[in-house]
């Protein structure tokens, strides 16, 4: 697989790992006094566990798993609204598979489907568009979920629907943006962070400059990283080198995919279709200003919130997070997943209690699935 396999080469990895060890030693970080690096993106969290990078990297590096899993930070009230939409008889509710198991207060989409709602997993919003074309007598709602990476796809789909004059296609918009929660985390006095590995596919859309404030205002380094294991290791090395050198810059490790200024077509499509919400709720993090997008009035015909009078537009419910859930603490790095009292007991991937156990990108799920879980079990 071109542009992927080359970046999985274990021989090259040895060299990077040695170099990482060297820089960690230069910094003087140890297991007791580690360097804290946050990989913002759930895709990175997943890759770290998938390839065992947590075990390969020196003990002096502590990964903090960031809030970059759109499924994990989706508030329960929004899941409930999805279920409500999906249960309308006229609605075909289309979604990425990721969202199927996320618990709402009453049920997940998977359960709603089992109970009769017409819910279809798709790979692309284009597939939802096609379902709408083929079912003119039904209302096809697409669950628009994701960060800046995914936002252009729904924006372009809405533009396409508008060009075709489709009257039965809407998007239930839950798109969120990465920089605001980072700022929120950096403003959290409990947060201890030495640097960031930035989400490469977000920057592929928005470029690297939206992170400038991290270096400029907070004096922390950030390296925009690809998703192959060598990408990640190289990015970690670049972060460590900045720390060692006392620099705080926004660097681009993933230059083969990420233009510094992002993708102009995507940026234009987002700007055309979406506008900022004043505030949006993040599961485990609460309300964050200007962190969510809504569909502009010019595209109101494609806005499920408007068409079905649901969600932020209508009477908004704030749903309390489940009791005993420590997702907030884990997401801010104050707690390891295994330290949550619910971990592996009241909260498992089969029956997730908290958001971070839902997606395989969630830190708790990754810990559970790829090793952390067993570590927490009493020895047999």
């Amino acid at each position: 697989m071109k542009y992927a396999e080359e970046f999985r080469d274990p021989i090259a990895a040895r060299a990077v790992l040695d170099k990482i060890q060297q820089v960690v030693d230069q910094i003087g970080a140890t297991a007791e006094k580690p360097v804290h690096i946050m990989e913002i993106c759930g895709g990175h969290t997943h890759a770290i566990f998938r390839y065992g990078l947590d075990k390969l990297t020196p003990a002096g590096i502590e990964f903090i798993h960031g809030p970059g899993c759109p499924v994990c930070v989706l508030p329960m009230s929004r899941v409930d609204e999805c279920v409500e939409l999906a249960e309308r008889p006229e609605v075909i509710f289309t979604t990425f598979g990721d969202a199927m198991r996320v618990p709402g207060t009453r049920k997940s989409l998977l359960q709603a489907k089992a109970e009769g709602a017409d819910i279809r997993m798709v790979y692309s919003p284009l597939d939802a568009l096609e379902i709408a074309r083929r079912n003119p007598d039904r209302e096809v709602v697409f669950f628009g979920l994701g960060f800046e990476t995914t936002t252009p796809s729904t924006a372009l789909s809405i533009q396409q629907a508008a060009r075709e004059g489709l009257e039965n296609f809407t998007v239930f918009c839950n798109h969120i943006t990465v920089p605001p929660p980072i700022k929120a985390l950096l403003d959290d006095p409990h947060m201890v962070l030495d640097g960031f590995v930035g989400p490469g596919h977000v920057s592929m859309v928005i470029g690297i400059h939206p992170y400038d404030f991290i270096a400029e205002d907070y004096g922390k380094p950030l390296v925009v990283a690809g998703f192959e294991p060598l990408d990640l290791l190289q990015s970690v090395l670049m972060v460590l080198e900045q720390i060692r050198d006392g620099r705080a810059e926004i660097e681009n490790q993933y230059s083969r995919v990420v233009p510094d200024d992002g993708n102009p077509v995507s940026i234009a499509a987002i700007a055309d279709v979406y506008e900022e919400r004043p505030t949006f709720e993040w599961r485990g993090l609460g309300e964050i200003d200007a962190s969510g997008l809504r569909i502009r009035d010019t595209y109101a015909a494609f806005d499920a919130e408007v068409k079905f009078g649901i969600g932020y537009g209508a009477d908004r419910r704030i749903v309390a997070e489940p009791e005993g859930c420590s997702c907030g603490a884990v997401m801010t790095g104050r707690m390891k997943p295994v330290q949550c009292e619910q971990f592996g007991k009241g909260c498992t991937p089969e029956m997730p209690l908290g958001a971070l156990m839902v997606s395989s990108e969630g830190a708790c799920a990754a810990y559970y699935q790829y090793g952390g879980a067993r570590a927490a079990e009493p020895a047999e």
Partner: protein
Amino acid sequence: MCLGIPGQIIEITDEARMMAMAEVSGVKREVNVSCIATGPIGDVVGKWALIHVGFAMSEIDEDEAAKTLEALRGLGEAEETLEAMAAGDAALEGRA
């Protein structure tokens, strides 16, 4: 988040809707190429792009990929040099 995978655009399938066939390891899927088709749409054929949820989101820059790999290999060579030097030192020490 944001699972993306490099794929090659192999043919245009629907010019009006900006759709083309992409191939990833022999697996084909129709994708939208608006984000990478800055010139005539036909130009995207043969190009590699990062594919995400059915869209070719970003053209992959071959030169940059090569540079990154070079840097990674550089580390390896540096290390070999270091190792060689260490081996040399050891040999010297052994000789001492």
